[in-house]
């Protein structure tokens, strides 16, 4: 790396940091964030309801960690992180076009790639914070009686890390989708609740074309029990392979988003 390359790279990092600071503070103020913050806290309310019913001995035999694990798989993995990544990822570029504010950014001495990376990091950081808060509070409420059990915190850390990786990867993918498609939300919904939910159960290597396959591979496999004969089930990849693939997917789609955003012409309709 020459000195000029180093200078260019540090200028790029500085630009991305400035964009990050701008959009992280802006994102905290918008109505969308307040709504999604509320949605990400729904499991906490649910956890309270469950805990109260346990206290009043309606379902005392069900362990808190069992409910928590189901919450992670059903609500967070299959719904919340997809929705958050979809709405924040696509908005990295599309909100600038729809709000006609792109001009303010592209007439500054910052590269278009720095705009994408800075905004991506700001939004990914924000959705990770939102999700983590919801997960931690749900965990605390559901495991109120077992908080002294240190092994439970390992589960919490693992789940938070997996969800964080999921948000990182999905947001990168949807950032790319937002730069290429005008109606990115529609496509994103079909991808999230069609492709990701269906293809993950396809036998053989087909399921490896989903992001959720690598995320679920990082969590313990649910016992198939008497359904072990089923053809359609998760065939997990190794932990190392899954983490590598998640980072690879993130890098590839972010790179593509940067290239596209730099060379594509965006015309804001009057």
């Amino acid at each position, binding site marked *: 790396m020459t000195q000029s390359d180093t200078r260019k790279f540090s200028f790029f990092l500085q*630009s991305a940091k400035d964009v990050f600071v*701008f959009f992280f*503070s802006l994102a905290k103020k918008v109505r969308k964030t307040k709504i999604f913050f509320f949605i990400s806290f729904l499991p906490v309310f649910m956890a309270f309801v469950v805990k109260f019913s346990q206290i009043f001995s309606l379902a005392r035999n069900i362990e808190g960690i069992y409910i928590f694990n189901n919450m992670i798989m059903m609500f967070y993995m299959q719904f919340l992180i997809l929705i958050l990544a979809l709405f924040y990822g696509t908005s990295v570029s599309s909100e600038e076009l729809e709000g006609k*504010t792109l001009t303010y950014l592209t*007439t500054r001495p910052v590269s278009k790639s720095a705009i994408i990376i800075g905004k991506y990091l700001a939004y990914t950081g924000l959705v990770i914070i939102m999700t983590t808060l919801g997960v931690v509070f749900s965990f605390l409420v559901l495991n109120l009686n077992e908080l002294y059990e240190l092994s439970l915190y390992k589960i919490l850390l693992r789940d938070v890390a997996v969800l964080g990786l999921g948000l990182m990867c999905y947001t990168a993918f949807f950032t790319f989708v937002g730069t290429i498609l005008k109606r990115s939300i529609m496509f994103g919904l079909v991808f999230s609740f069609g492709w990701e939910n269906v293809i993950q159960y396809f036998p053989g290597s087909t399921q490896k074309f989903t992001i959720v396959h690598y995320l679920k591979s990082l969590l313990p496999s649910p016992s198939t029990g008497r359904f072990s004969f089923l053809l359609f089930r998760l065939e997990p990849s190794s932990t190392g392979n899954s983490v590598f693939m998640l980072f690879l997917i993130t890098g590839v789609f972010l790179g593509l988003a940067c290239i596209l955003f730099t060379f594509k012409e965006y015309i804001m309709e009057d």
Partner: protein
Amino acid sequence: MTAVIQTQNLSKWYGNVLGLSDVTLQIEPGITGILGPNGAGKSTFLKLITGQIKPNIGRVMIHGQNVWNNYAMFAQIGFCPEQDSFYEELTGWQFLTNLLKLHHFSPEDINAKAEIALDIVELTKDKDRVIRSYSRGMRQRLKVGQAIAHDPNIIILDEPLNGLDPLGRRKIIRLIKEYKGEGRMIVVSSHVLPEIEAMTNRIILIHQGKVFAQGDIHYIRDLIETHPHIVSIKCSQSRLLAEKFIGYDYVLKVHFDLQKKSLLVETNNRDKFFSLLPSLFIDNNIEVEEITSPDDNLQAVFDYLIGK
């Protein structure tokens, strides 16, 4: 003088719609006014010279460098877009300081530059209010503020006087003239001739995506003065007034609009005609309700000039 902005055979289409066609220009330092009716291609031209959009044919150079994707150039360029759009949740102060951060100034410089810009556009008092609560004029002034805050040498303003009250307009015009005095280059667009006239003598006339004329504003003034001009007058004694007009050779036609109960007068010398009016009203004790110029806009002048 050396041209700062150069365009060669610049053409732009939006699908089948022509935005700009074969524009070759050289813009020198000082103030240059881009004049044309709505939809003429002024904004397309400004978007092309600020690298917002790519030309289909031709090229744009600023200081001999290509503009498209040349982000380093924007340290020296300030652009005020036409569209009234903002990050509405931010305050005026946050909007300016966040944009200044993208110029990599130190925190002290950012604060100082934001203070100065807000002071210039007279928004210091309202800097902590969210932009959503700003009036149209305040929003317009903030747009101008973000274009000048980083102290650029080249300032490009797309319809900067839109939505401003007469006092606000005068202040922005004065500011633009001051910047010229400091040796900066300003390109400003408008569809209102007197606005451009108040800022500069050097104009580029754009119509239907083409440069119709360029040069000294007196040239277009002369063209306009030969354009028959219609004036509508609503008054108490329109027949008496019509009778008085007949004696003047620069009054070409007089007729009555029965629906609007007004007198329509066609003249080929606006200035003389308007200086005649007060004495006619006073001498003949005529009470005037309203005087309007139905075709006092550039579109009418352009239509006349291109022989529509």
